């Protein structure tokens, strides 16, 4: 069966077409077309929708909604999403960023998925025709998800959002690991809450829950964060791939997390 593309103007029709076996949604195609080029013959049909809301970004009342077809380049240049520009620019080179979509990044396997790491730290929700799902749950079940993701939504943080991608080749390289953190401080300067998301430390973006807990009430100093760094690798199962070994990823994670928190 050759690969064929079907384009629908409505999400409903596209979702219906996606139910047949061997069919996948086509975002920017940087992963799914690549797989076909490389001889993956399991995908026989691609479906896409030209529904305009998929390509829009809305920021109002402290809430952001990014359509699933929005590209990394579009996020990076959006005036009100400045805090996310670093995470969007972390994906590939300029041409990849003009193609790679937010929706596709949610499905990108390790060592990819840098932008999804940022979304995980932001506690985003993922919208499909079935409604909204918290991103943690969405990522856990993404392999069986058949519905088109239409958008992601999150509260725009006042400040305290940080993102770091560690790669060997600069300026464009695949992740050794990536980290996103949303840290809220109490009036006395101690950490009130923390959400830390890690990329490449499992087969998909994951939370560093032990480190998050250890940070609550701590000072944002070298000594204050030391207990959190000591448990940073708890429940990680990093990949071993041509970029880095699992051992290496675990060794350097606390170092980079420390640098990010103190930056």
């Amino acid at each position, binding site marked *: 069966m050759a690969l064929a593309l079907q384009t629908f103007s409505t999400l409903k029709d596209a979702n219906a077409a996606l139910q047949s076996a061997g069919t996948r949604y086509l975002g920017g195609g940087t992963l799914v077309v690549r797989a076909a080029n490389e001889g993956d013959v399991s995908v026989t049909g691609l479906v896409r929708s030209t529904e305009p809301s998929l390509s829009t970004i809305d920021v109002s009342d402290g809430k952001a909604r990014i359509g699933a077809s929005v590209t990394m380049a579009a996020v990076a240049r959006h005036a009100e999403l400045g805090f996310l520009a670093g995470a969007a620019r972390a994906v590939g080179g*300029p041409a990849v960023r003009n193609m790679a979509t937010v929706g596709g990044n949610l499905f990108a396997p390790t060592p990819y998925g840098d932008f999804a790491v940022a979304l995980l730290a932001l506690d985003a929700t993922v919208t499909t025709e079935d409604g909204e799902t918290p991103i943690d749950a969405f990522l856990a079940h993404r392999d069986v998800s058949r519905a088109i993701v239409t958008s992601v939504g999150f509260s725009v943080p006042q400040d305290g959002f940080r993102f770091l991608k560690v790669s060997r080749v600069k300026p464009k390289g695949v992740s050794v690991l990536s980290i996103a953190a949303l840290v809220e401080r109490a009036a006395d300067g101690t950490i009130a809450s923390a959400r830390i998301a890690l990329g490449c430390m499992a087969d998909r973006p994951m939370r560093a829950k032990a480190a998050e807990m250890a940070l609550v009430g701590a000072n944002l100093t070298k000594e204050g964060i030391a207990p959190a760094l000591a448990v940073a690798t708890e429940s990680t199962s990093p990949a071993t791939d041509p970029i880095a070994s699992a051992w290496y990823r675990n060794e350097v994670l606390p170092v980079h997390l420390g640098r990010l928190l103190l930056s």
Partner: protein
Amino acid sequence: MAKVPVQFTLNGSETAEFIDSGSTLLHALRDKIGDTSPKGGCHQGTCGACSVIIDGELRLSCLTLAENCNGTAITTTSGLSEGGVLHPLQRAFLDAFASQCGFCTPGMIMAAKVLLDHTPNPSRDEVVQALSGNICRCTGYEPIIQAVLLAARANSQNAA
């Protein structure tokens, strides 16, 4: 196999072709339309040799489905020289010895062109960023970076 029509402007000329559904723009350009200036070095998005400009944006033609390019304006390196006169970037790549085997060159020139179209006087770092999706295994990146800076200088002198 189902054939689908594609129609776009290629280097200023209206171009139409029937292709297999699901085939890439790289395939359509090279094997159907006959513009072999975009090169296929990896077909996986990593080398940048297949870079083309679609509606002013840099794209990888190996990962772009041709059907999705209907109605767009596409530029390739073969369309840059007008009336036999080299584009300043082509001139600079030639003068600065930025092209050894030449396989990466059309893609490099595309990436550089998008940069200069938006940023006529880029810094060295901006050039590095703009070329970061393109791999060259022969020339070494320094002559290529210098060629782009040279072209930018040549452009601004012409404009002055």
